[in-house]
C-alpha cells in the first residue's frame, strides 16, 4: 500500500458535514435548493427515534480522527450545527 492510499483509507470511513449536505442535496435532485436539503436533514435528525444520532468527529493533525468533545450526539446539537450551515449559505448568497 502506498502512503496516499493509507491516508485515503483513514478518511474513507468519514464524511465531512459539507460533503454530507452536498450528497443529500444531490440525492434529492437539482430541483431542490441546498437550503431546502439542509432543512430536510434537520427534520430527519429531529424525527429519528430508532437509532442513535451520529456523533461528530474532528480530524486532528496529530492524532487523526477523534470524537468531537464539544458536541454530543443530540438532535439539538445537530440541528444547531446544520442551522448554522444554512445561515452561512444564505449569508453567502447576499449580494454584498
Amino acid at each position, binding site marked *: 500500500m502506498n502512503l*496516499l492510499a493509507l*491516508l*485515503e483509507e483513514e*478518511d*474513507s*470511513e*468519514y*464524511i*465531512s*458535514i459539507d*460533503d*454530507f449536505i452536498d*450528497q*443529500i442535496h*444531490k*440525492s434529492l435532485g437539482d430541483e431542490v435548493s441546498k437550503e431546502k436539503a439542509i432543512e430536510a436533514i434537520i427534520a*430527519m*435528525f429531529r424525527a*429519528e*427515534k*430508532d*437509532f*442513535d*444520532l*451520529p*456523533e*461528530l*468527529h*474532528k*480530524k*486532528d*493533525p496529530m492524532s487523526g*480522527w477523534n470524537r*468531537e468533545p464539544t458536541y454530543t450526539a443530540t438532535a439539538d446539537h445537530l440541528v444547531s450545527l446544520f442551522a448554522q450551515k444554512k445561515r452561512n449559505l444564505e449569508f453567502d448568497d447576499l449580494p454584498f
Partner: protein
Amino acid sequence: MIYPSETIAFKISSVIPILRKYGIQLDSEKSASTDALTPTYAKDYLHATYIDPESVILLLCGVNPSHDYYDQDGYWNDGSPVRNYRKYSELILTAIDNQQLNTVHSKNNKINQDQIRSWCSAMNIYWPIPTNGTAFANTPLKDQNSEIEKLQDQLKEASSQLKEQEANSKFIRDLTLERDNLKDENLKLKIANFDLEAEIDDAKQKISALERDIISGKSRSFLLEILGGLTTSLLYVDIFKSGNIEIGKVTSALDSVGINATPETVSNYLKQAAARLSDSGKADTVIEYLKINKG
C-alpha cells in the same frame, strides 16, 4: 476523499441506518469498504456466517450484543429497556416459528446471516452489515416497488415503441418490395419499347422501299399515256378494243428484251393506259392512227 485538518465529519456507518429509512445512499459509500460501512456496534459480526437470534434482535436495535452495559432479555443493566427490543424480538421469534428464518441445530441454533439479510430486505428492515456490492440492498421496499413500477412503465413504453417500429419496418419492407416490382415492370416495358421501336424502324424501311416502287400522280398518268402510245404506234395493238386484245404481241415483244410479264399484268396496265388516253382526249387520235397504219 482526503480531508484537511480541522474537518468536522460524521462516521459514514453512523448515518447509514437513518438514511436507509428514506432510501438515500451516499456517493461516499461506493468507495468505502464493507468494514467502513458497518456501524461500530455490529463490527464484531462482520464476518459471522451464523448469528444467534438474541444477537440478531440486538443488532436490529442498533446495540452491540457484547456491550458491557447490556444485561439480558432486552434490558440494560440499569434496568432501562433497550429501544425497540420488544418489537424486533416479536418479529424474529415469529419469523423463526413461521420458518421464514431457520435456526441451524448443528450451529447451536444460530441463523445464517445471508438468510437474515434477505429476510430484512423483504421486510424493509435495516440490517447493519452489508455485503460487498449489496450495500444498497436495504433500500426501503416502497422505493423498490416504485422503481419497479417505473421500470414496468418504461417497459410498456418500450414495447409500444417496438410495435410501432415493427409496423414502420413492415411498411418500409412492403414499399421496397413494391418499388422493386415496379423497377422490374419498368425494365420489361423498356425492353418492349425497344422491340417496338425496332419494329417501327423496320416498318419505316419497308414503307420507304415501297414508296420508291410506287409511281403516282402526273408521272403515273404520263407513263400510262406513253405505254398506250408505244403499244399502239409500234406494235399496232388496239388497246381500246373490248374483249380479246392482242396481248400476246406485247408479251412477246417484252420477252425479246428480257422482261417477263404475265398476260394479266400486261392486260391490266394496257386497260389503264386506254382509260387514261380516253380521259385526256387523245384516244381518237390514237384510233385514227391505227386505222391508217395497221394494215
